[in-house]
């Protein structure tokens, strides 16, 4: 415990929020898929910091497991986005924007 974990978790959440808004705005669908990258990264960071931020020393190891699972599976959503999110019609639509 350095006392920094809580504030940093908040800081990362703020980053996540800013990045999500950016990703949600687009303009292209590819920009929206950036949200998938943020998962594996900032989400894992926030969870790890939360595991330590509890204040008690036997840290919340369960949250480390949650972070581990998220890190392991984050690729699935991202890949699904890239492989499945764009149909053929969508491409035309995208280009005409």
């Amino acid at each position, binding site marked *: 415990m350095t006392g920094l974990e809580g504030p940093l978790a908040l800081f990362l959440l703020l980053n996540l929020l800013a990045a999500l808004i950016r990703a949600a705005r687009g303009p292209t669908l590819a920009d929206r898929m950036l949200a998938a990258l943020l998962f594996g990264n900032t989400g894992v960071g926030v969870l790890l910091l939360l595991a330590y931020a509890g204040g008690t020393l036997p840290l919340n190891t369960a949250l480390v*497991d949650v972070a581990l699972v998220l890190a392991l599976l984050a690729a699935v959503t991202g890949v699904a986005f890239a492989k499945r999110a764009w149909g053929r019609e969508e491409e035309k639509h995208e280009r005409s924007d």
Partner: protein
Amino acid sequence: MSLIFDTLLVATLLWSAWRSLATSDLVHAVVMFIVFGLLMSLAWARLGAPDIALAEAAIGAGLTGALLLDALRVSNQTAQPGSLAKIPALQRMAVLLISTVLAIGLIIAVLYAPLPSIQLPSMVEANMAQSGVTHTVTAVLLNFRGYDTLLEVAVLLLALLGMLAVAPARPVSVSHVPIDPVLATLARLLVPLMILTACYLLWAGDHRPGGAFQAAAVLAAAGVLLHLAGLLQAWIRPGQLLRLGLSAGFVLFLSLAAILLTEGALLRYPPVWAGALILLIEAGLTLSLSLILAGLFLLLSGRRGVP
């Protein structure tokens, strides 16, 4: 500091939920729904419910996104942004009215809920010694309220059966899309690690957050990843072996319940056997649930082009 964190988290949750509902672009809606899932997982972590955070992370990151995106493709609606805007005003008003009444009702129900007359946490504490496990959530899920879990598994199995019954069996013509080497390598490296982690979660359920549902979600995600990487064919129609696997966990659970019923009570394990029985049931459930969850995706994926 934690108050600010929680406020921000709740605000972001509401924002993503709203965006997910309000946008007329379905892909955007799916993206926001997945974001909502991740934030929900953080919220469960904050609420001190790591079991649910774990399940939400596994299902949200591994399955929901892939499933919803696939559903979009099957329903072929990605090309019609703004289609939701065509709903007549009268219908919208009706929906708004009903939702408002429901929301007010829920708020009243929460505010005026009667205090529970029995103290469940202390009852669980008092009976932990007989449960056969040391983690309270597992004790509740598989011992004290085992019948709830039995029925939940039945519901999931039914959902899959329903999907099999409703969807017309029109297999996709197998096209030879070249396997992307980068993606395939990721799957080859990660899937063994996912299996290891799933086993770990199953083992952990005995004394800390983890268990069959979480392990199954990780395994199912491994299946989805293999399929997306082009290393695993979509399922067209489950064969005998697969059917056996899909139902094994439920059948095992049900037959144990039937045997225990002859002893006089529904799913009351003899304390000496409780630990071993719970592990047996959980192992069976992990296998079947992972096949069911993966099946939801792989069977849907095998039926692309449904009108």
